[in-house]
């Protein structure tokens, strides 16, 4: 396959203890000899760590938060495109997708192409609708109920036993052991993220994850399975290793097929003591450990960029089991002038190549 030389816009530069995937995406592109393009970072905060990785990014720009609306985002993208002339946009945060899905024409007018799910596909994997995958397609999803009033919490014990999981549609999950804890978790989730609040049967076992790339026609271009070896207190993987389990990859393939998923995603699954899998979540983007996929032999970020650019990528090679990563936390020293540049101009330029 020919070398990929497009300039790529990459979001999600918040490589913090709750990391966005952008730095891992950029690393996967930069380290691949088949990539010869430029990488432009898009970030929301002046202190997002990706700004300060000049080995990876040729430039980075501040962009308005998704809550600022689509018009503000597209105005900023137009400004950036006048300078960078990128061909591909790889958005890496869930909250960015609603403003970008279905916007092929507007993005195309700016010279940008993406490889994203449709709005219907995106909505189908919402946490409060995952149960439909069980009912329609037989995907193993733990039983759940959507709650919009606290009264429902008091009847939960009739549906499934404690412990159970209380979660918001967007972020976070709390394991609760009795009704008092469930009520507390309900209000906490509702206050922070709104309704519905989801109560789900708890499945005991170990969590395993898959990064997969769907071609949008029901096919799976690539998939890499990983077990987290070390977790942060937020449950984020700080170290992990690639694994192989035929059942897990079959489940991933089946999911992409029934959803006709277009684009990358992260599939979160729990394996119980009997070895059966239970689907917990589908995140509609690459995870922050996606550079492990490249390390194991499947460059899913580059494949996504190629598909966005209209190239044919049918299937990635098999991956290496036992490839591992560990995240390293270090300090990068800055001058006040570097912060001033980002703060006043909202952009930084210049890649370090030696």
């Amino acid at each position: 396959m020919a070398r990929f030389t497009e300039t790529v816009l990459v979001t999600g530069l918040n490589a913090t203890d709750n990391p966005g995937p952008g730095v891992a995406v950029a690393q996967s592109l930069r380290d691949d000899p088949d990539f010869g393009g430029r990488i432009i970072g898009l970030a929301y905060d002046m202190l997002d760590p990706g700004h300060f990785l000049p080995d990876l990014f040729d430039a980075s720009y501040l962009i308005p938060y998704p809550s600022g609306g689509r018009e503000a985002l597209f105005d900023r993208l137009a400004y950036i495109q006048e300078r960078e002339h990128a061909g591909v946009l790889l958005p890496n945060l869930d909250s960015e997708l609603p403003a970008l899905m279905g916007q092929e024409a507007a993005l195309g007018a700016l010279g940008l192409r993406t490889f994203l799910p449709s709005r219907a596909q995106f909505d189908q994997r919402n946490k409060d609708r995952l149960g439909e995958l069980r009912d329609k397609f037989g995907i193993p999803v733990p039983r759940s109920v959507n709650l919009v009033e606290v009264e429902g919490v008091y009847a939960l014990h009739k549906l499934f036993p404690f412990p159970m999981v209380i979660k918001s549609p967007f972020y976070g999950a709390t394991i609760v052991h009795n009704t008092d804890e469930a009520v507390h978790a309900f209000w906490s989730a509702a206050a922070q993220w709104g309704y519905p609040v989801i109560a789900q049967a708890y499945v005991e076992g170990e969590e395993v994850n898959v990064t997969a790339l769907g071609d949008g026609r029901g096919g799976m271009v690539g998939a890499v399975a990983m077990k987290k070896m070390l977790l942060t207190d937020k449950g984020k993987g700080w170290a992990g290793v690639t694994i192989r389990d035929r059942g897990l990859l079959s489940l991933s393939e089946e999911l992409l097929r029934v959803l006709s998923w277009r684009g990358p995603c992260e599939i979160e699954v729990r394996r119980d003591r009997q070895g059966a899998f239970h689907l917990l979540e589908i995140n509609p983007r690459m995870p922050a450990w996606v550079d492990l996929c490249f390390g194991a032999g499947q460059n899913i970020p580059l494949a996504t960029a190629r598909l966005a650019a209209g190239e044919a990528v049918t299937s990635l090679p098999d991956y290496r089991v036992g490839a591992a990563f560990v995240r390293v936390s270090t300090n990068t020293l800055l001058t006040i002038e570097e912060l001033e540049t980002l703060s006043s101009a909202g952009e930084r330029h210049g890649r370090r190549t030696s």
Partner: protein
Amino acid sequence: MELDLAISPSGFVFDPRTGATFSANPAARLLLEGMQEGEGLAALVARLQAHFEVGEADDLERDVLEFLRVLQDETLVPAERELEG
């Protein structure tokens, strides 16, 4: 007995299905290698006797079966599997 493990000469053991890693001492590594080759209880005991100065076969059989239970607890070996004589 099907045992899909990567076992290094140093005793580092990796389960490619779960991602779990273990450190095996020389006796454990010997038994794991024997199980991977499909050996039954008698062959595993003979393997131990050939490599170590050890006691009666009866005691060794108990030790091997106890080791099998440990492997089953760690889901490295299916719970229903038994060693054939």
